[in-house]
């Protein structure tokens, strides 16, 4: 393994002119100045580059191979996105520069809003949320503001969340001050309409729904669900984590969603960055638009401005205007694909997922055996002496990233596989062949799976140990 950067002891390069230490004392009273030397790494430029290059080689990434991580939409990240995000006029634009000097940046945001509204059918949109969960909380605050304005006297204190939902949904609702009620799915993996009816009442503010859901299944009763929710005076929130299935195929607003977040880092090809930065744009209906966060980008006679005035806005949810360079990448993606390319995305993602599902469903157990959308869920056969974790670790030895595992929670030992539209039949065939071999190993030589992975930089890691004895930073250890 690569050593820690603090274990290097070499001469750093000079990046800025050397200054005199005494300068600080001249301008600032001693009580404000630091008294101890900071303990930062001391490494030469060559060591820094070698160290981080070595670390990079320990990572699996979309650029290195197939990454079928369900619900994460690990599609290819086009390189033109990165190239344009580096343009001086974008990376070097200061957020508080006078508006007349950043017209290009404002136009880009304005146009991206139009593109996202066109593919979703929503009337209002904000690009400010920095991530999917941040978009969720923004959407829930819009819902709260809407109810408060519409019926100030009525206290809608409950948010309904299906049992298949991402963990962020109930966490978001609870942190916004709502009580969370879980709604069960039926035996087809859809929301159970009878259960929904039972839970709907005058105290319900909204239902948070992911469509397709985390089983990769289209919510067949979506129109009935949205009708029931709306008849109750509640709103329908869409978790757009799985929007890739519907891109260019269906507009969520037309299914009855009132508000939805988009993950620009999933559906719109911005990279995931090892866990961020992402961006979680939020689209909404006309009724919710007055409550969108400030500032809004406006266009008047070819001049773009930032509007902080809307008096019913929920306020600001992040500094400045969100993850701008992530928006730039999504914008480049829209330009490249255009109307023709966007029309193919959802359809191809669905075809790829069904092809792969069909290749695997005779060998693995498929808890919901029906046409899937962009992803599907498998489990090990009950007579194998291995669990999902073992299979996932063995997949690493065959050169692929494992699927999402142990999610959704309603499927015991779930493996959730999402190939995305950018992968080829050939890649999926190779992956399927590996999974077939792993199934044979699971049935005949389960110990191979228990020992996996063997080919990765480190073996299985003791997560319990990490929780028991917390080591959350590097500390110099006494040698010997």
């Amino acid at each position, binding site marked *: 393994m690569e050593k820690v950067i603090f274990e290097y002891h070499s001469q750093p390069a000079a990046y800025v002119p050397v200054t005199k230490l005494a300068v600080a004392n001249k301008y600032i009273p001693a009580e404000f100045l630091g008294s101890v030397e900071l303990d930062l790494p001391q490494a030469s430029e060559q060591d820094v*580059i070698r160290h981080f290059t070595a670390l990079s080689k320990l990572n699996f990434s979309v650029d290195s191979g197939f990454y079928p991580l369900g619900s994460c939409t690990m599609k290819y990240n086009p390189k033109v996105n990165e190239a344009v995000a580096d343009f001086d006029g974008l990376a070097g634009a200061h957020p508080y520069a006078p508006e007349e000097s950043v017209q290009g940046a404002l136009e880009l945001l304005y146009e991206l809003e139009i593109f996202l509204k066109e593919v979703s059918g929503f009337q209002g949109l904000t690009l400010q949320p920095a991530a999917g969960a941040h978009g969720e909380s923004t959407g829930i605050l819009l819902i709260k503001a809407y109810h408060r304005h519409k019926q100030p006297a009525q206290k809608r204190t409950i948010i309904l969340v299906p049992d298949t939902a991402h963990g962020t949904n109930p966490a978001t609702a609870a942190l916004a001050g709502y009580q969370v009620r879980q709604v069960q799915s039926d035996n087809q993996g859809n929301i159970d309409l009878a259960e929904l009816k039972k839970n709907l009442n005058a105290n319900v503010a909204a239902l948070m729904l992911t469509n397709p859901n985390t089983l990769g299944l289209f919510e067949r009763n979506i129109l009935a669900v949205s009708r029931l929710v709306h008849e109750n005076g509640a709103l329908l929130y869409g978790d757009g984590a799985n929007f890739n299935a519907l891109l260019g195929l269906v507009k969520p607003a037309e299914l009855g969603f009132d508000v939805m977040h988009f993950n620009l880092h999933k559906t719109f090809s911005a990279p995931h960055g090892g866990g961020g930065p992402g961006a979680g744009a939020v689209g909404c209906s006309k009724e919710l638009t007055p409550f969108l966060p400030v500032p809004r980008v406006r266009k008047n006679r070819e001049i773009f401005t930032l509007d902080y005035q809307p008096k019913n806005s929920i306020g600001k949810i992040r500094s400045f205007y969100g993850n701008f360079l992530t928006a730039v990448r999504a914008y480049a993606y829209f330009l490249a694909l255009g109307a023709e390319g966007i029309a193919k995305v959802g359809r191809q993602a669905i075809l790829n997922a069904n092809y792969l599902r069909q290749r695997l469903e005779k060998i693995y157990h498929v808890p919901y055996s029906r046409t899937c959308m962009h992803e599907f869920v498998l489990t090990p056969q009950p007579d194998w002496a291995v669990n999902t974790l073992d299979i996932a670790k063995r997949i690493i030895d065959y050169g692929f990233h494992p699927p999402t595992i142990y999610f959704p929670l309603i499927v015991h030992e779930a493996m959730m596989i999402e190939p995305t539209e950018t992968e080829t039949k050939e890649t999926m065939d190779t992956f399927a062949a590996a999974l077939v071999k792993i199934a044979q190993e699971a049935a005949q030589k389960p110990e191979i799976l228990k020992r996996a992975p063997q080919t990765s930089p480190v073996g299985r*890691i003791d997560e319990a140990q990490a929780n028991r004895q917390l080591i959350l930073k590097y500390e110099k250890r006494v040698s010997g």
Partner: protein
Amino acid sequence: MDFIGNTAADNKAMQRDLGLASEEELLKDIPPDKIIRQLLALPAAASELEVKRRVQELADRNVSVSDHACFLGAGAYDHYIPSTVPVIARRGEFYTAYTPYQPEISQGTLQSIFEYQTIMCNLTGLDVANASLYDGATALYEAAHLACAHTQRNTVLLASTVHPEYRQVLRTYMQNSALIIKEISFREGIIDLADLKSQLNDQVAAVVVQQPNFFGCLENVQQMGKLAHANGSLFITSIYPISLGILQRPGEYGADIVTGEGQSLGLPVSFGGPYLGIFACRREFRRKMPGRIVGESIDNQGQRAYVLTLQTREQHIRREKATSNICSNESLCALSACVYLSSMGTAGLRNVATASLEGAHYLAGSIANLPGWKISFKAPFFNEFVATVPGNIDELNSKLLKNKIIGGLSLAKFYPELKNSVLFCVTEKRTKTEIDTLVSILKEAL
């Protein structure tokens, strides 16, 4: 141009294997009248060359800090970025990976975050740091939220000298959790300690300040920390990490939680994002921290290895009982900060801080000599300061732009009482010539 790898023949073969007469059979769960049948109102598909041309056209309509002398800061700083930072951050192995859920093949991301956490602890003087949050504003909210949960109190005393947008973000979220914010007023550019004292009571969960504050001035953090602790409240500071090259570390003046905007550590100003939310705290709060945390463990061969830890705090396990709803961090930005500080080292960071300080004081000294101009506050400052202007700031800034200079921020929007005031910032990138040019234009203009 799309990025679909399959040929038409591949697609046909897949459909055949699936036994489909048409691809439409895969869409049978979708209400048929909701399926989009015609092209959407989007631009026509474009080649890479055309995409670059269009985005370049937009980029060219912005003023950039790369060819203008920038004296604008206010939460987004034009510091020098060493060449090492983009080289590493542009490695596909880092930027096209996801959250390190499979640690055996994610040690690169995990170890770099572990190193980032260590550097943030060393920089702030606190015990633990997380893997990063969205930005300085949301990090500050998470700190205030933690303080209320920890102390079981419902009020936060918020310095009016904290970045105005951070205060707005706090207000948005706190209102919706039925928590109360009270602002502490300022005098002479820093917090009025008498006002702070008068507002302390047994419902105050935390005192929240920014150091250096929004005006660049240094707050009396030692005294404020003592007052907060004597009241049983937590002391939270929002920091500008570059300043810690010379300023006292928050751990030494009693901060319980430190948050901050990490953009200055190797990230471009980027029209406001992606940025880096720093979050560090004392050991006793570590199980209540928001966001991802990386811990060291061992693998089955006994080798040192890293893994996401303390996950029982998080939304995917705890759902509605989680400490926060955060899932993403700003991992790649944390990597950039890690490479930045690893490249700079202790002396390099001190040079950046000292040069910024010196440049700002040189500019302030020159402005103080201009007729009609005044440095607004007497408090010591780091690399930003407020000046009172004898004229129209917007017109002045337009004139500066024509001379390839980005002027300071007019404070009228955020502080109506300071309507003739401008906030200037100087970083180590500003040369003496650039500062002299700015001053000569200011002199001529008004």
